């Protein structure tokens, strides 16, 4: 699973830059689909709640700074973590200081 933190949505891109960035994402997803790697992906809204403690205390999100905020995730096929890391390097958001958290989904 790729969890995307910050990046292009946290920086103020010009309309042209935003469009170019998005086109790179489309190209990336298309490549992953062609290689039969892409399983699913969803954006996350920049809001939410955090429920915690024995008192089930509810606090308002988001839970990170704009530049660290999780924007969404992809679930992809990879043979192991190392391969997934290689694939993640195609993410177009590194030029905007984006981060990709690569986590293996546990197999039961």
């Amino acid at each position, binding site marked *: 699973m790729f969890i995307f933190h910050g990046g*292009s*949505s946290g920086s*103020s*891109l*010009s*309309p*042209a*830059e*935003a*469009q170019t*960035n*998005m*086109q790179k*994402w*489309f*190209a990336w*997803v*298309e490549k992953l*689909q062609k290689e039969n790697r892409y399983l699913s*992906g*969803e*954006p996350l809204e*920049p809001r939410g709640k955090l429920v915690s403690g024995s008192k089930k205390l509810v606090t308002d999100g988001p839970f990170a700074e704009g530049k660290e905020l999780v*924007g*969404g995730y992809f679930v992809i096929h990879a043979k192991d973590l190392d391969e997934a890391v290689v694939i993640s390097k195609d993410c177009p958001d590194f030029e905007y200081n984006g981060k990709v958290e690569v986590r293996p989904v546990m197999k039961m």
Partner: protein
Amino acid sequence: MSSQNINQLAGHLFRHEAGRMAAVLARLLGSDRLQTAEDIVQDTLVKAMETWRYNGVPDNPSAWLYRVAKNKALDFIRSRQRHDKIHSEIAKEIHSEWTLPTSVNRMFSVPEIEDSQLRMMFATCHASIPEESQIALTLKILGGLSIKEIAHAFLASEETIQKRIARAKDRLREEKINLELPPPHLLADRLDAVLKVIYLLFSEGYHPSESAVEIREDLCEEAMRLAHFLIQNPATHRPKVLALMALMCLQAARFDSRSSAEGPITLELQDRSRWSQRLMNEGFRLLEQASEGDELSEYHVEAAIASVHMKAASFEDTTGTNSCHSTTSSKI
């Protein structure tokens, strides 16, 4: 998601929609809230960017953007109403919840968008704003270019462009320049100012300079797009506007043939087969149309000179070449 997604966003969808939305939002919120209008546009594009990359481009991307922008505008208006009045031509309508959603919707209809863009052009090219600030603000608001991009195109520092834009915005506020079409008795003069900005914008893009070719082409394209708004509106469909557009078409037809790795190529040496036939014909047609009245502007003269050069099969065939050596720019 398929390759269709990528094609759907071909061209300058975001840039052009940014210009459209900024014009409409500023009209809704008043010219003293230009910054808010720009912020809403920015948030809208960010939302699109965040969502589309996972879900693909919606069937009608423009409508999607307008819906988001409308909702953000409604939120802003509703949160402000009580304590902070909005000064715009439709202030009355938007101050009542009965008419608010309808009028916001109406403003995002195609004819109103076009009208808003035209009004915005007259505002950003207002005579009380210094000329260089007029150009910068026009590119920023209507062209959807960032300060960095404008600075790059004009080989100026971002700080300089930032200052020019800030000054333009101050003037809009101080002079209470409304987003409206000038009354008939002022239209001719105000239109001259708009045409001048378009002309300067085009010239800046057309002259061979240090900045990248794509940026220069963008400026030319933007100038032609602005002129197109004027031609489409009956109030500003004037011979002078047609003549300027004719001039730009004729010059743009030669865009590809003017430069080589070694530098600019002058008219004499250009490969005429590389000139765009489509733009040339459009230029000739517009010039003919522009000459139907008895108005003669500097744009008529320049377009006529360009057309003489381009109708000839070779440079030597150009009639009266000796008397046509007006400016170097017409030769490049």
